[in-house]
């Protein structure tokens, strides 16, 4: 039973990578998604259709395939093997792999987020914009001072859904050899020839998502001081 401590240490390390991917994805995909949402609602048709096509491709293909695609891109399109790219960026191969995964995740989640943002923005009654307009506010002021808070409130439940899905999707990082929580559990299962690491991983996932659920629920409650 001395193994337990070792196993938990390994899992904790894997969880560190899971957490890093989760945080990086959210940090970049949340603002990028808003940008994508504006692009997909743009009056400039080419931009609008470019965005719609991108969203169609990203939502229409598996995330795992997108990760692989990003990882092959430098080698096959730019003729730069991964190890050269790593040298250029002055990072390890593992870190380069993490970068690939993160890029795919950010792009993928930004597309999903953008659709949620769009739904939220389109749900705001036109009267809110008009009220801002007749009060002499410009477009940016109307969005930042009137619309944004209402959008955030409306989209928090579907966003929570995506955020919790993201926690579990991080396990896809293992296609590029990233040792995330699930991958670490798999290693431990093979190494010690016992199944309990899977159980531990389950507990890790559940605890983390439980915490997130509480946090997001709290935010939702905080924002529901008014009715729309």
């Amino acid at each position, binding site marked *: 039973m001395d193994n337990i401590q070792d196993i938990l240490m390994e899992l904790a390390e894997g969880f560190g990578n899971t957490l890093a991917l989760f945080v990086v994805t959210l940090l970049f995909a949340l603002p990028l998604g808003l940008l994508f949402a504006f692009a997909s609602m743009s009056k400039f048709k080419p931009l609008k259709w470019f965005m719609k096509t991108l969203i169609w491709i990203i939502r229409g293909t598996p995330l795992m395939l997108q990760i692989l695609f990003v990882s092959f891109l430098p080698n096959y399109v730019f003729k730069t093997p991964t190890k050269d790219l790593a040298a250029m960026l002055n990072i390890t191969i593992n870190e380069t792999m993490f970068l690939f995964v993160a890029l795919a995740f950010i792009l993928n989640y930004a597309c999903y987020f953008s659709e949620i943002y769009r739904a939220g923005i389109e749900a705001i*009654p036109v009267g809110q914009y*008009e009220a801002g307009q007749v*009060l*002499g506010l410009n477009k940016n002021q109307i969005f930042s001072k009137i619309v944004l*808070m209402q959008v955030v409130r409306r989209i928090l439940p579907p966003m929570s859904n995506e955020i919790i899905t993201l926690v579990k999707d991080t396990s896809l990082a293992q296609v590029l050899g990233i040792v995330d929580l699930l991958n670490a559990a798999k290693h431990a299962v093979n190494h010690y020839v016992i199944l309990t690491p899977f159980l531990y991983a389950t507990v890790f996932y559940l605890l983390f998502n439980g915490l997130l659920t509480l946090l997001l629920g709290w935010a939702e409650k905080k924002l529901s001081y008014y009715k729309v």
Partner: protein
Amino acid sequence: MAFLEVNNLYKSFNETEVLKGVSFEMERGEVLSIIGSSGNGKTTLLRCLNGLEMANAGTISIDGETVFPADGKNSKQTGLTFGMVFQNFNLFPQYTALRNVTLAMDVQAEKTLGKKNPFDFKRKQALKELRAKNETEARLLLARVGLENKVDNYPCELSGGQQQRVAIARALALSPDILCFDEPTSALDPELTGEVLKVIKQLRSEGRTMIIVTHELEFARNVSDKIIFMADGVIEETGTPQELFENPKSEKTKAFFEKLSEKVTENDD
């Protein structure tokens, strides 16, 4: 030259012509009501005045200055020339009654202070003082519409009549030259219309220039200096309440009143 001059305003949505050459004028301090059946261009006229819609042709001038067509320079001022009270209030639900009123004032205050700079502490101090001043002013405005006890309430905690009174205070915050009302009581329960109409009457006694689109004929008759009857995208008849109600000249105006009185008798049965 009249205070507000509207000349030959045309507006169509796709193929549908809504305004077919509307001209009228009003003086400062006057109250003008626009009546007529639904779908005859009353609301569109109001929206063309305050810039929510762009008229296709025609001119609007205030105090001799053309505000439409805008030459870019004065286009921003239209919002402050005309205040607007909407049928559905359109209050900002995430803000208290007080914040609803101060929001636009604070935005204006920031504009007068010029560019933002995080290290400009003088500007920050000045902004703080202006905001405090705005808050005091907003509290007075809310008190004037009888809501001094509701300043910290959110719109969802207020009745329709109270919400509309907040909306009136909000529209007054930027001291517009002309205050426009788009059917201000149509979304209200009958027992709540009185409190809103009372506020409008009070504004009249303060000498506010107002344009009111309304279905409340009795109210229009009591409060207006001049009434415009619109039918089919044009001004069918203009006159003092007395002229219009007691001695309508146009056939359409007569028909409108007759139809309404029939409705009233029906309801009485």
